[in-house]
């Protein structure tokens, strides 16, 4: 019981404690301590889940292999983002809701909501906390209070809440289908019960199809599938860089997790074809659109945001193929993408602090001004383009081989073509940044070495995962895949 509650309680208490720490520097110390505690709590939970298979705490909290995998992912990303932001926030001007105290408090609240999504046993609770993630992160997106930030925050709140309303409708229709098929009232929202009783939902096939379509559109908005993606580049670009990392590497995974749960239930009820086709469609569309739009980007963080859309599309394609191999590849891809995107956003953060903006047209002489950061940028860029020896190459290779194995030749060709386009575009965009002479900085800036260390750890993990999957990690992934394909 406590095992599952602890990772949820620590961020809440941390948020309150950080808000109470008014002395300068105290907030960062409290946040750092809380971050370490949280990491320990998550690690403890993951180990217990691995030993027990499924952990249940009361009627509303449950964690299985899939939850454990995502817990590891979000735990790592949050730890990295927190470590980076302690140095990043030195230069934030204080304002209403804009001080470091509020940043840490909101970040911990954000973590709480995402963890609650992963630990919910009930589709209704999952929806509630998914909406809560939007609420918790909106103030973080609009943190800088500039024109762009306010507009991005408004669009983010608006579009994501509309999308989530569609997902609510889908949840309700699924609940209706379950109730009419004889599943008892409060249990009809419990995803374990629904997955086990999926075959009984077959007579209500029309309702289940309607439910999945609405859930796919709704949660797909939060994942960033095209054509519902318009909020994503704005929100991820205008947010402070550690928050962009949390959004790209944490929140998008969260939304895809919701879709995975729905997919498992609907696949069990209707057979795999319907839901897989929808996911494949969204995945291909997102991949194509993102790859094409990356070519014309003029801002580094917007480029990284479109890259997130692209990789979410790739993961969706993996889930859409549906074989155990493809699912393994998709989950591995999500993990690798989180690491690489965090690395890239941290580098972008350093660039923004040094140059005052992250515009691809104006930043020059990076190799000379910020040598550590430029190494991180290049490594991250190569990783995100899918080149060996980084981890993304391995996961993309697995997904591609699954595509060929199941006969989706056209999709595989589209995927390969998109990857080539993205690789060329990245080369074209990143290379001018490194060469040339850097203009003088607006204010004195020294790279904070723990931030660089965090970037280094990310890169190292990517390298390791690209060469050899550690046995423990493999077991974690296999347990997650087993939940989706029993």
């Amino acid at each position, binding site marked *: 019981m406590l095992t599952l509650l602890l990772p949820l309680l620590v961020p809440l208490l941390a948020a309150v404690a950080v808000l109470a720490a008014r002395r300068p520097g105290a907030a960062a110390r409290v946040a750092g301590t809380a971050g370490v505690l949280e990491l320990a709590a998550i690690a403890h939970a993951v180990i217990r889940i691995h030993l027990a298979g499924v952990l249940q705490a009361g009627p509303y909290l449950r964690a299985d292999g899939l939850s454990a995998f995502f817990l590891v992912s979000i735990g790592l990303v949050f730890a990295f983002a927190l470590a980076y932001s302690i140095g990043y926030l030195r230069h934030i001007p204080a304002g209403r809701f804009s001080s470091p105290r509020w940043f840490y408090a909101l970040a911990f609240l954000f973590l709480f909501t995402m963890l609650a999504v992963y630990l919910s046993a009930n589709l209704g609770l999952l*929806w509630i906390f998914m909406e809560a993630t939007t609420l918790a992160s909106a103030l973080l997106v609009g943190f800088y209070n500039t024109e762009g930030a*306010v*507009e991005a925050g*408004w669009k983010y*709140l608006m579009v994501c809440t509309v999308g989530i309303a569609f997902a609510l*409708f889908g949840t*309700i229709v699924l609940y209706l289908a379950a109730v009419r098929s004889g599943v008892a009232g409060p249990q009809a929202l419990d995803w374990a019960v629904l997955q086990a009783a999926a075959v009984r939902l077959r007579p209500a096939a029309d309702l289940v199809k309607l439910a999945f379509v609405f859930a796919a559109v709704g949660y797909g908005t939060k994942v960033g599938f095209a054509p519902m993606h318009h909020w994503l580049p704005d929100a991820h670009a205008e947010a402070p860089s550690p928050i962009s990392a949390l959004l790209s590497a944490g929140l998008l995974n969260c939304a895809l997790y919701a879709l995975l749960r729905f997919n498992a239930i609907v696949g069990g009820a209707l057979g795999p074809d319907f839901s897989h086709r929808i996911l494949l469609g969204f995945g291909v569309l997102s991949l194509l659109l993102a790859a094409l739009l990356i070519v014309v980007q003029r801002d580094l963080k917007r480029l990284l945001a479109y890259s997130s859309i692209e990789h979410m599309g790739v993961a969706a394609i993996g889930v859409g193929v549906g074989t155990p191999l493809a699912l393994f590849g998709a989950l591995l891809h999500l993990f690798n993408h989180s690491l690489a995107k965090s690395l890239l956003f941290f580098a972008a953060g350093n660039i923004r602090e040094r140059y005052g903006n992250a515009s691809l047209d104006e930043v020059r002489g990076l190799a000379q001004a910020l040598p550590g950061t430029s190494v991180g940028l290049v490594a991250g860029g190569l990783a995100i383009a899918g080149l060996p020896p980084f981890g993304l190459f391995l996961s993309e290779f697995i997904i591609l081989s699954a595509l060929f194995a199941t006969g989706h030749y056209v999709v595989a060709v589209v995927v390969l073509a998109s990857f080539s386009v993205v690789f060329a575009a990245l080369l074209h965009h990143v290379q001018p940044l490194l060469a040339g002479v850097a203009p003088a900085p607006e204010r004195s800036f020294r790279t904070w070495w723990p931030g660089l260390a965090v970037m280094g750890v990310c890169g190292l993990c990517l390298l390791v995962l690209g060469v050899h999957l550690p046995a423990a990690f493999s077991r974690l992934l296999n347990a997650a895949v087993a939940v989706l394909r029993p």
Partner: protein
Amino acid sequence: MGWIDAVAANLLASSAGLLLILALLMAATTRARTCILLFGLQSAVIAAQIAALARLHHFAEGWAVAALVVVVKVVAIPWVLLRITTALQTTPIAAAAIGPTASVFVGSGLILLSFAVVRPYVAELGVDPARLAAAVAVVLIGGLLMVTRRKALMQVLGLLVLENGIFLAALTTTLGMPLVVEIGISFDLLMWVFLMGLFVFRIRDTFDHVDVSRLRRLRG
């Protein structure tokens, strides 16, 4: 107590007409305050529906949900929104992309559309077609409000109306979701209204207007 049950059943059947009228009036209104009051009225009708259902089907959770809807959607959210309109002090005539007459006719078209959309499901679900069509119509008119109104606060109202419609659809087909879920959804909505209010003020302070159709800096 049979006549109370009869009254409840009749009220339930009549509520569809009331909701359709309120939805059309919302499409016709140009002032934010009127729209907020109409939203409060609509939520009150929905609360009455829940109470009638709780009475007729004898389930105690329904009373709690009805009380929740009254507290959150009839009192709290309209109060917050009215406070925001007072504090904003912008011109009360909310600019819209299409005029009130056109809005009303598009709204009527949407209501007819919702009747058509609902038809194939009515036989299977065994519900009153007027009530389900009213729910879908409220959703569609909420969408209309969001798309055609240019002031930030009217978009907020549009989404609140849309959520009302989804809630109504859940009410008509099942007897609503479990209480815990309902409480969570209401809390989420209240928090969302607070945050939107915060952002409306930020937009006003940063841009000196609240016309969201002019927020076009970020493109591509």
